[in-house]
């Protein structure tokens, strides 16, 4: 039965994971994401799942990848410093095409920074943080309801693309309390099964191979080395490496037009806000306060892969205003894809932009 609850963003994320079918959580305490681990520790054992607190974040993501290879849906949650530690194994998950969900409730950085305050400074790290060329999927929730919905979506995308998927939340959304509607059933995507007898890393047209889970007698070899379609390492063939990396990037980038998820308001506006995560709430307030100004709003729910085609939906746009809790990480991506003015509105230190600040920029542009 669909139920309505009043809960914290982090709890909603954990509930979303459970609803999506997550049955393994490996984590390490870190502010401001700890409530996700705590809620999973409470709920998972009663649902036949496994919760384990590992010795560090490196081990957490490692255990998650290991669990995923047994066929389980698995996740971990962390914040900046832990996210940095996870980078190597995130690359491993990309290379071995392991479905998993990594929640980053962002806090102020660099280094230990501001553990209890909000930031969006890891948006480029989640895209480029591990070494080598790759592509990932990252979602960014702007409400407690979306903490639930996008966690479900993250699992579905991870299963479909056999890729790590990031939920890039921020401290404000993670610790905010709002009403959440928890449905009885959520949409679910299972990973494509492996066809016995075929090569375990040979992909079809969608570039995603079937998943040969451990324990079924497939005898699959999984390695982070450059591997051929049998899964055997072959790190010295330039062609093989190029083909593999291009396929791994291609399976995500090729689908960006069809999987992208965003909200578009006033597409005929001349001034358009582009936002994701907590700053979206301020933008919503600006639009609410000034309904006659015809201000556009593009709210990205999926930040990576960046779907540049949605910018063209704003046919009259003269300028894109990008408020972020960083020094303009996604603004830079937008600049790459448009010849219109891009106004970056950075905000550091944990505070949100005020509606007055943002409206002043609109007025300036007029």
């Amino acid at each position, binding site marked *: 039965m669909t139920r309505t609850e009043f809960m914290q963003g982090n709890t909603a994320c954990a509930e979303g994971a459970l609803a999506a079918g997550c*049955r*393994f959580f*490996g984590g390490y305490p870190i502010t401001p994401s700890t409530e996700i681990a705590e809620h999973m520790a409470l709920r998972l054992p009663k649902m036949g799942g*496994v919760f*384990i607190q*590992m*010795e*560090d974040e*490196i*081990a*957490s993501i*490692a*255990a*998650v*990848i*290991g*669990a*995923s*290879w*047994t*066929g*389980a849906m*698995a996740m971990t949650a962390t914040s900046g410093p832990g996210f940095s530690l996870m980078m*190597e*194994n995130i690359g*491993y998950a990309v290379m071995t095409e392991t479905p998993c969900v990594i929640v980053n409730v962002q806090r102020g950085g660099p280094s230990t920074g501001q553990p209890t305050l909000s930031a969006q400074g890891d948006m480029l790290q989640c895209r480029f943080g591990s070494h080598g060329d790759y592509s990932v999927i990252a979602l960014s929730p702007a409400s407690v309801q979306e903490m639930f919905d996008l966690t479900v979506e993250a699992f579905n995308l991870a299963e479909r693309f056999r890729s790590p998927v990031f939920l890039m939340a921020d401290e404000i959304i993670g610790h905010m309390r709002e009403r959440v509607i928890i449905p009885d059933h959520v949409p679910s995507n299972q990973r494509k099964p492996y066809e016995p007898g075929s090569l375990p890393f040979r992909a079809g047209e969608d570039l995603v191979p079937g998943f040969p889970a*451990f*324990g*079924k*007698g*497939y*005898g*699959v*070899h*999984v*390695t*982070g*080395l450059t591997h051929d379609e049998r899964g*055997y*390492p072959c790190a010295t063939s330039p062609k093989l490496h190029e083909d593999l990396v291009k396929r791994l990037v291609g399976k995500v980038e090729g689908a960006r037009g069809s999987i992208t998820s965003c909200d578009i308001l006033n597409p005929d506006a001349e001034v358009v806000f582009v936002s994701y995560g907590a700053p979206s709430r301020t933008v919503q307030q600006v639009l609410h306060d000034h309904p006659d100004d015809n201000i556009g709003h593009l709210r990205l729910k999926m930040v990576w892969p960046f779907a540049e085609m949605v910018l063209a939906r704003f046919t009259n746009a003269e300028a894109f205003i990008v408020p972020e809790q960083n020094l303009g990480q996604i603004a830079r991506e937008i600049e790459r894809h448009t010849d219109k003015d891009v106004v970056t509105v950075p905000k550091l230190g944990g505070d949100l932009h005020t509606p007055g600040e943002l409206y002043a920029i609109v007025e300036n542009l007029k």
Partner: protein
Amino acid sequence: MSEEDWLRQDRLPHIFCAGCGNGTVINCTLSAVEQIGWKRQETVFVSGIGCSSRAPGYISTDSLHTTHGRALAFATGIKLANPQLNIVVFTGDGDLAAIGGNHFIHACRRNIDLTVVCLNNMIYGMTGGQGSPTTPMGGLSTTTPYGSGEPAFDLCGLATAAGANYVARWTSYHVRELTRAILTGLENPGFSFIESLVQCPTNYGRRNRFKQVADQIEYFKSHTILVEKAARMREKGEMIPPEMILAGEFVRRNRPALGVRP
């Protein structure tokens, strides 16, 4: 079935140098797995990075070749998510004791039901012979060109102190004893740790007075002393020369274990 059926025939010969002891330990491990009667589809081999960690690539079961030092953390995830699987971890001294030291002591503390075979060649072989945490004092390597000035890790002592259920040490010369120790490790619930010293003629031996493969094997043969004998010598107040290798079973106990098949 025989040991040969556990090998990926299409991948042999393996990449190990001529005379490397890793292949011997693979034989012993597969012999033990064969004797205990595990099924291929219920067995998973996991490893990190390094020479030793290439071993699972030659074994025909499901195998996970992971990142440097993290094999135990990956194996923990697999075992907890599916306790029906039997898991053997191949790891090296650098992999386990240096970069993976934290995972090692915590896996021992959790006493998770894994069997870990550590192929200790006392050197970083794959990267060309750098000093490792188990390079003996005075041992020559490319990063200790004047002899290692740091004391070496006693991995078995570490595993015992951290809480492993079964701990043993042998060398690649003692194939029978090593096989029996691995078999006992496989049978024993909880964390089983079997350290095997292996010769590395290419990167350790030729820099440390072992000109031939046989020299280091002869050294293992002549410098091994049984744990029981060492204890008797200590009782009598006799000195055990520091270069002697203590071999045998260090601990076999039944602490509460994690991830044991229900």
